[in-house]
């Protein structure tokens, strides 16, 4: 792929990206969220059209253009997505041959179909009864059936988009075995994943994308993991005004009231038990790659995922949190990572979106009067400089940054002691970003305690007093004071030798 450019309204998703895949190699495509990995793949497979650029494929002497996944498949590019796109209630053999069943006298030749399916899977070392419905088998097997189908249809390029995210370790091993086998047969595999370990285990080459640009192509062996993390996250150019962070005296902080004290808190399947102490007025950051358990830790504290082990002390009192309402009532607030799905209530007005949390806390019968609602809304529209034509327009009509401010306003209205901000600056423009960072510092000065989650280390360094690092759903270390530096954090994320506390 040469010079691929793709723009979406408002953002350049890909700009001038080159990507080369050689036959018989496993090529990892890496980058944080929004780096352009999926867009690149969508362009390659014809789901999205590119604006400029060319794609060449071995054996075809002119640039190819794929207008649909079917066209891509016809020339030998197939994809297996994270969610398995097969029919669980059909048999394995039917799934492999659906749409291209072997026929005899115009009717489906079941015998041949089952035999061929069986052979196909045997080649990948999978011995299963192909006449059983797909749903009888584990996710890993289903995934491999999907791969078998993809490879059987066309076999030059195989794209695996986060295939391992729902597999356990043994299943990952099985998948890797299949991948190696395919590699030997000369298929080029593009492997998209967030798991660093797996990249080092299986891939030959790594291409890194960041913010829609190509960072570079590297041989896996020659690229240490710390460097890879650096490449992915990037040392952002100082385009934001440097914010003056009040250097909180470490000892001073320790003496202050402990707001959050989690002891062995955990939620099976999302976050391993962790200990965490947060003092009044602190801004604590959670750092780690995507899927490392950053958000999950916050959700366990807030009760968004009810913790099933450990204890939580809030302001030195034991707190039993079953639902978000319990957390809200005790003085917590949670701005979720996914603004669209969990944050805004899109059809309701700006005013209603701002007052809803306070109204929920007050209960059904203590209605906030219309006049009060309008005052509250105006106050936060003014305070946070929310750009909206009126307080009564549906919040979905606002831009992303302004929607985020509305949600921020919603939580500030409840006057929380402890505020969780999960990626508050994602997908919003630079100006608003700085504003939000400034606000965070201001709240901390006012004595509010803040848990701040962000993928951008620069931003974290700017606002946090303390940073906890997570890896593979575990809290692995805590950095504070002088330890707070880009390289220390990256080392901790990559799993280098950092002293655990």
């Amino acid at each position: 792929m040469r010079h691929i450019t793709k723009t979406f309204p408002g953002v350049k998703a890909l700009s001038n990206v080159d990507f080369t895949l050689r036959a018989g190699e496993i090529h990892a495509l890496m980058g944080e969220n929004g780096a352009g990995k999926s867009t690149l793949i969508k362009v390659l497979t014809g789901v999205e059209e590119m604006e400029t650029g060319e794609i060449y494929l071995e054996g075809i002497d002119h640039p190819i253009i794929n207008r649909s996944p079917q066209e891509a498949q016809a020339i030998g590019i197939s994809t297996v997505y994270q969610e398995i796109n097969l029919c669980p209630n059909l048999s394995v053999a039917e799934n492999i041959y659906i749409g291209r069943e072997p026929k005899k006298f115009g009717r489906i030749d079941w015998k041949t179909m089952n035999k061929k399916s069986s052979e196909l899977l045997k080649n990948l070392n999978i011995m299963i009864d192909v006449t059983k419905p797909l749903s009888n088998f584990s996710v890993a097997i289903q995934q491999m059936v999907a791969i078998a189908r993809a490879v059987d249809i066309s076999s030059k390029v195989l794209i695996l988009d986060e295939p391992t995210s729902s597999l356990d370790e043994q299943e990952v091993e099985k998948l890797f075995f299949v991948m190696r086998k395919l590699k030997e047969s000369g298929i080029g595999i593009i492997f998209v994943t967030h798991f660093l370990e797996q990249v080092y285990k299986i891939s030959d080459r790594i291409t890194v994308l960041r913010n829609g640009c190509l960072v570079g192509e590297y041989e896996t062996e020659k690229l240490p993991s710390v460097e890879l993390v650096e490449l992915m996250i990037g040392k952002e150019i100082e385009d934001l005004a440097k914010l003056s962070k009040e250097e909180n005296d470490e000892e001073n902080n320790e003496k202050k009231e402990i707001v959050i004290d989690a002891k062995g808190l955990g939620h099976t399947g999302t976050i391993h038990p962790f200990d965490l102490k947060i003092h009044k007025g602190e801004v604590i950051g959670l750092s780690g790659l995507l899927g490392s358990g950053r958000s999950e830790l916050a959700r366990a504290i807030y009760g968004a995922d009810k913790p099933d082990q450990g204890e939580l002390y809030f302001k030195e009192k034991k707190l039993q949190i079953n639902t978000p309402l319990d957390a809200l009532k005790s003085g917590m607030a949670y701005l979720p990572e996914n603004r669209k799905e969990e944050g805004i209530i899109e059809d309701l007005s700006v005013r209603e979106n701002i007052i809803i949390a306070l109204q929920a806390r007050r209960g059904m019968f203590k209605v906030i009067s219309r006049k009060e609602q309008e005052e509250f809304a105006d106050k936060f529209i003014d305070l946070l400089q929310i750009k909206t034509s009126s307080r009564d327009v549906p919040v979905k009509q606002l831009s992303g940054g302004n929607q985020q401010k509305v949600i921020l306003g919603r939580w500030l209205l409840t006057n929380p002691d402890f505020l969780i901000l999960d990626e508050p600056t994602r997908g919003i423009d630079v100006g608003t970003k700085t504003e939000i960072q400034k606000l965070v510092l201001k709240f901390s000065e006012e004595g509010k305690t803040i848990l701040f989650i962000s993928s951008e280390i620069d931003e974290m360094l700017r606002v946090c007093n303390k940073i906890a690092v997570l890896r593979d759903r575990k809290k692995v270390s805590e950095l504070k004071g002088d330890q707070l530096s880009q390289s220390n954090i990256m080392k901790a994320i990559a799993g280098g030798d950092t002293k655990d506390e």
Partner: protein
Amino acid sequence: MNKMKELWKRVTGFSLLFPLVCLVIVLVVNLIKTPDFFKISMNNGVLYGYVIDILNRSSELIILAVGMTLVVAASGGTDISVGAVSAVAGAVCIYSLIGGASSSVYRIPYVLAIVLGILAGTACGAFNGFLVAKLHIQPMVATLILFTAGRGMAQVLTQGFILYVRKESFKFLGNFLPGVPIPTPIFIATIVVVLTFLILKKTSLGLYIQSVGVNRKASRLVGLNSSLIIFLAYVFSGFCAGIAGMIITSRVYSIDANNAGLNIELDAILAVAIGGNSLGGGKFSLAGSVIGAITIQALTTSLYAMKVTADQLPVYKAVVVIIIVALQSPIVKRWMKNIKQKLASSRNGKKVEA
């Protein structure tokens, strides 16, 4: 000029405009076809006329549409059991009143029987709510259970007979109270609508329902108990079905488990849709649903007035409904907007030439 424009904008931006226009069109067509359509006369001390008849006959539908509106708004699904539930409520009321055979003697006080009937409806609503809110069963499937089983349950009580209550006082609810010229169902429907409106206005339940309907996940994170709110919406729908069942049985002073409230759930859903409410849940307008219910009944009554027979009625009704619903679809609205813009630009073009 500008003021006119602004006024025009406010009028066209008014969300109830379309449902109202539909109703007016139906009425105007009536007026042309049936000149004495709006005539109201006094006969034997009660009011008669097409308009009174429409309001009277649409009472059950209005009550059901109110409940349906909240169900749709909170859960993004429909309660298709309301017709059957009203039959259950009717059967419970009459069975407890006179026992398993037609009679003219009350076993228990009339009021108590009504309360029991409405309670039966509410219990059915709670069952639906449990299935949808707690077990996360799709609303259509969950309410399908009572849709089919409800009439069976009513049959068990009536043992397959049509039970008649041969006592004058039983007819009050569905017909006229002595000395009052306006049919009783109109009062009941008005009370239900006003009470519901007040509850939604005076508590934050209306906001909660909309919030849960728009985004259940986000609502949970702001501290709303989404399941409870959806549950309550279904309970309320069952309550409304119970009241409707009381009116339906009183009208004919009998319970016919097979036919009481037959197919009325579909009209209730339609009323919600004609009222401009999205069946996907979220924002809702109670007034819209009420207007929708009246529009449907006006349509039915006027088709009868135009001498359309009962068996042909659904065809004509379907045609009108298709038109009304299609006009509200976003795609047709976009077409209309485009046409308007083209007209405006061609007019401007002419002006420039001149």
